[in-house]
């Protein structure tokens, strides 16, 4: 057993018994950890009450050295940092979407401190907004960071097949998850798995600093593309996706 004291964010929590929970935590230095929190559902516990997604604070975990046993959470000092996510629906949904994708993208004990910081920052920013329009740029920005940190950043500045620049001409472009990036007009016919992308949306995706000022239609198109891409990567649609784009949109 290794004793670990760290800052953590709860990605997921399931009730394990009348009194216990199994929680998936993201820690900055040790990555994802699944741990049992015994007695967490009792009114008085060492976890400041039941642990829910977005719970954030100092944790103490006894890390199990064998892969088939759960680690044990012995303490969680919850700071209440992301409380404002509980009072607006669009932000709560975007936050849950970020947690779901983060959990699906990494194995346990694979630390990504930059991603941890990006996620915490994203949740802080979400807490300040309540309109879907304001929430989307924050979500899209995080989804691109997540792909980057997972080592699968798609190529968006040129054709991923031949390297031809795709910025000019104003013609529709294509995106392929299997090719992991854009396809130019000359290459797209060779790929069956692909999705149309407008040049304007492509230009926006290459200028992340400009997301917050982007028109809603382009942000929606970008989110549809990302949902399509994550669906291909995960071999199923993410559960939170339908709160952002309808499934038909994501697949078209």
């Amino acid at each position, binding site marked *: 057993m290794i004793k670990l004291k760290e800052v953590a964010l709860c990605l*997921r929590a399931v009730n394990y018994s009348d009194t216990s929970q199994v929680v998936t935590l993201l820690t900055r230095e040790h990555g994802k950890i699944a741990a049992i929190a015994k007695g967490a559902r009792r009114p008085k516990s060492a976890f*400041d*009450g*039941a642990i*829910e*997604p*977005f719970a954030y*604070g100092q944790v103490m975990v006894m890390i199990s050295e064998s892969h088939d046993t759960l680690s044990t959470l012995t303490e969680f*000092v*919850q*700071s*209440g940092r992301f*409380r404002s996510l*509980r*009072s*607006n*629906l669009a932000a*709560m*949904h975007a936050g*849950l979407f970020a947690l*779901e994708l983060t959990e699906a993208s990494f194995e346990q004990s694979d630390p990504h401190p930059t991603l941890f910081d990006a996620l915490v920052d994203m949740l802080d920013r979400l807490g300040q907004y309540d309109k879907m329009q304001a929430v989307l740029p924050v979500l899209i920005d995080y989804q691109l960071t997540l792909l980057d940190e997972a080592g699968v950043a798609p190529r968006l500045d040129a054709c991923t097949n031949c390297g031809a620049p795709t910025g000019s001409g104003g013609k529709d472009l294509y995106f392929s998850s299997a090719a992991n990036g854009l396809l130019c007009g000359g290459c797209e016919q060779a790929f069956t798995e692909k999705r149309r992308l407008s040049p304007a949306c492509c230009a926006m995706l290459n200028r992340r600093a400009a997301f917050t000022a982007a028109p809603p239609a382009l942000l929606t198109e970008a989110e549809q593309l990302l949902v399509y891409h994550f669906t291909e990567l995960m071999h199923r649609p993410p*559960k*939170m996706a339908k*709160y952002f784009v309808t499934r038909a949109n994501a697949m078209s």
Partner: protein
Amino acid sequence: MNPAYTQSLNKLIEQFGNLPGIGPKTAERLAFHILKAEPQEALALAEAIRDVKTNIHQCRVCFNLAESEVCGICADTRREHNVICVVEQPKDVISLEKTGLCRWVYHVLNGHIAPLEGVEPDDLTIDALVKRIRAGGVTEVVMATNPNLEGDGTSLYIHSLLRNMDVKVTRLARGLPTGSAIEFSAASILQDAILGRTPF
């Protein structure tokens, strides 16, 4: 399955064992109690179980448990039918009624929205709630979903549907439990108490 027992006895033990909080030993003890009991006493239990399953259904108006088309609360004309308290399950109605403070009527959602578990708004009785309010005569909707992430999300969703309707939406207060101490309170509870403070 104990081969020393008859088939019927084993079946009864198995049924008791399926109940929450009942282990194999207790199941056996209960089954033997029934076996030894007077026929009248044992059959009264069987009848009570059958009645619960055949007589109790959902209230047509509020989806609370009812033995007639409309539950006792909805049928009570002395209650304040202009105030609807929204709860997740019938058990919550019972808890709230025990306080003796409630004069309002209820709406039971039959659960909460849980996007990650695939429970969506359509799986609950939200449509019926909106129809009740649209029908008029309702001045206040009190959100009494559980104060956890799913409960809060469910209330937010319902609130978003009611935003353009002429009805006041409130929710139960949260914060420091009576008899507790500030020193030992979690940050989230203190935040609720600070932000939700009320005039003295």
